[in-house]
């Protein structure tokens, strides 16, 4: 039963493509950050689905690490946009 995973994976990839419109043209910094955050979330799901499509579910480990890194990246970019610097002395 690979077909449902394949179809869902292709649809999710298409939504990532649509989201990148907001990431490229979206007015202002924050709209772009939101779009990048959403793309990160969808990429986690896509990694899990790819693991099932090529019948190697150990891709879940990659998805777990990707979730952690995407979270840290969003927090750091948000803090930088808020303060204008990363370390306050």
């Amino acid at each position, binding site marked *: 039963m690979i077909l449902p995973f394949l179809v869902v994976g292709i649809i999710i990839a298409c939504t990532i493509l649509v989201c990148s419109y*907001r990431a490229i043209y979206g007015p202002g910094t924050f709209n772009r950050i939101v779009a990048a955050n*959403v793309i990160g979330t969808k990429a986690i799901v896509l990694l899990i689905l790819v693991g099932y499509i090529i019948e190697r579910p150990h891709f879940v480990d990659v998805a777990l690490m990707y*979730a952690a890194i995407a979270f840290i990246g969003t927090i750091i970019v948000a*803090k930088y946009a808020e303060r204008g610097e990363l370390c306050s002395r």
Partner: protein
Amino acid sequence: MLAIDIISTMFLAAGTFIMITGTVGLLKFPDFYTRIHATGKCDTLGQIMIIVGCMIYEGFTFITIKLLLVTAFYLLAGPASTHALMKAAYVTGVPVWKKGDKRM
């Protein structure tokens, strides 16, 4: 076996529909704060639905526990990154859209 396939496919389809809804909201809503409403909520439930579909298809193995870990981590981390973005935008003065204003 067939029943399990059908149930997991239904969960996958529901999750995909919710993800598409979140994307449409991201494109359609008028300003930054309302866009975050759409993405923050739809992506959380869509991801939970798709992962539950995978869990039902997998049965009970160690992969299932790892999938559960991904879901639990996202339930904690998703709202936290949403708060960070909202606070940064509010502090730096991104205007709030009121009804009748121009789209931003």
